[in-house]
């Protein structure tokens, strides 16, 4: 089936080549990081986590939220399920890559498997992520293969999907409490953090899925359906409202108000939720795109700039204020991993679309 990803029109190949170029740049930036050390990033003593950890957090949330689609069990969403599974798989793969990119000695990454510390949430997080990757990609691929053959998917696919739900919960809470378990970072030791993590992840994940299905609709003939998007938008709206409320609470009660990017996140969040709440704008495709994009950006900025910088630096463990800004090498690695994930996702979507077209015809 993968050979279907090798056939495409000009714009498809331009997109693939563009992503490939970014991956190449990312690889060379990563090589520089391996050679010279993490000094090439903007991180330092009091900002020991940066963009890589931020992307890790964001993508874990997106990956876990995709499981909602299979949970909803609604027939409008049957066309969307496979796309959601592939989005979950690629987001999980990307988050694992970001975790590894952040390590000082990634050649020793297998030590986490050989000598795991069972008290460490990071170990559990990576374990669950690997399991989630395995279940989603296998289930998605099997479902697609079954559709190609025109038969219902085998029984074990249902088992895998059921298994992916507790795994999604696992990666959620492991990541949320990974940051919440650090006693020194006062902003984070709030139950609100875990709640907000869930809300923002669902909001961003559903919004991203809506955008992806719209892009697929625009570039191919495959349409997952307006009703499907309506369902997803509902989840995104509820989650978005919850996220904005909780974010607003934190902005006004803690140090968050000192971070200008956080205000952007809040405002974008409010606007996107407003668009999604109003039925007229939610059902208009243009407004839907605008609302979803704003929501994804809002959550992304919140994770990247807000959670990490706000959490790490206000106040820093030893009472000093340090600024963090990612370097160009760091951003190239980030872009490289995002491009790799997008490349994989594009290829998988191409196969999905081709199979669906075949099946229909």
């Amino acid at each position, binding site marked *: 089936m993968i050979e279907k990803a090798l056939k495409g029109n000009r714009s498809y190949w331009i997109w693939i080549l563009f992503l490939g170029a970014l991956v190449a740049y990312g690889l060379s930036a990563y090589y520089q990081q391996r050679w010279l*050390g993490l000094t090439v990033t903007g991180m330092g003593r009091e900002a020991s986590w940066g963009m890589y950890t931020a992307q890790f957090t964001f993508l874990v949330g997106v990956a876990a939220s995709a499981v909602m689609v299979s949970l909803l069990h609604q027939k409008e969403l049957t066309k969307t399920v496979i796309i959601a599974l592939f989005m979950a798989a690629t987001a999980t793969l990307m988050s694992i890559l970001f975790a590894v990119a952040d390590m000082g000695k990634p050649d020793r990454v297998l030590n986490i498997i050989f000598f795991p510390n069972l008290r460490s949430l990071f170990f559990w997080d990576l374990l669950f992520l690997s399991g989630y990757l395995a279940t989603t990609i296998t289930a998605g691929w099997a479902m697609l293969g079954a559709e190609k053959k025109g038969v219902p998917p085998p029984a074990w696919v249902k088992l895998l999907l059921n298994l992916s739900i507790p795994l999604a919960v696992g990666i959620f809470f492991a990541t949320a409490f990974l940051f919440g378990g650090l006693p020194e970072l006062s902003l984070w030791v709030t139950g609100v953090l875990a709640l907000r993590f869930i809300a923002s992840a669902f909001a961003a994940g559903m919004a991203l899925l809506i955008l992806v299905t719209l892009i697929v609709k625009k570039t191919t003939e495959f349409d997952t359906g307006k009703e499907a998007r309506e369902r997803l938008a509902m989840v995104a709206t509820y989650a978005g409202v919850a996220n904005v409320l909780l974010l607003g609470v934190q902005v006004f009660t803690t140090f968050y108000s000192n971070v200008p990017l956080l205000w952007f996140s809040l405002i974008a969040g409010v606007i996107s939720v407003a668009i999604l709440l109003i039925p007229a704008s939610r059902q208009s495709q243009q407004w839907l795109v605008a609302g979803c994009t704003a929501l994804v950006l809002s959550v992304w900025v919140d994770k990247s700039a807000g959670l990490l910088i706000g959490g790490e630096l206000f106040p820093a463990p030893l009472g000093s204020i340090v600024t963090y800004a990612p370097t160009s090498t760091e951003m190239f690695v980030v872009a490289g991993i995002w491009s790799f994930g997008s490349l994989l996702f594009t290829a998988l979507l191409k196969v999905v679309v081709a199979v669906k077209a075949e099946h229909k015809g």
Partner: protein
Amino acid sequence: MSSLADGNTMMNEQRREFIKKTALGVFAGLGAASGLVPAFSLEKTALPVWDEKPVPGKIRWGMLIDTRKCKEGCQQCVAACHHEHNVPAFKNRREEIRWSWKNSYKNVFPTADNAAASKEIQNRTFLSLCNHCADSPCTQICPTGATFKRWDGIVEIDYHRCVGCRFCMPACPYGSLSFNWQDPRTAIVDPVTVYPTRQQGVVEKCNFCSDRLIKGLQPACVEVCPEQALVFGDLNDPASDIRVLLESNVTMQRKPELGTKPSVFYII
């Protein structure tokens, strides 16, 4: 029958002296000359003070810092520590690596009410180092168990296992951990040959001089302090100096409310 180690120790004491007197051209790349100096003092471990496998929990090492005796501007403890363990000296704040350092009262005890403390105390500098907590957050969060608690209470980093994820760094409430953002060997001033370095990509911190303890020596900072402000000993032994002093003095710990149970105490 004398063990191999005995003969080596004797021989190499003399050779060590010889080597110290010649210029040390270490870390300058691969040496071309061979056979000029037949042996070399390569991290020789003398016979340990304890020959048997240690019993976990029997000893608990601790340190008491009498800050009243600490002289302003004196950094001998930090200098000795960093010298003995080949700790690199990166100048910029971002990449600085430190096993011990002098800090202000406000930073060492941020959660203690310091508004009422005397001006003299507020201006005093305090030695900070890894507290080797009995319930340390860094050992809990390390995914590979590279940071772990030893049988004698010392929180040690296994540099062979560390993957450099840096989760221990924000986990430590005291900022005791440093990361090698680049190759440390470029920044080691006046290296010693009897102790290894670390490498790019791993985290490091004070080890309570476990390398000196097995030789029956006191930690470097304790030995070198001109005012004898540092006391080191077994917290489990009621007759030890440190226990006697702890019982006869009022002491403070850093951030006790976090429940980390540090092994380092301060007399203010």
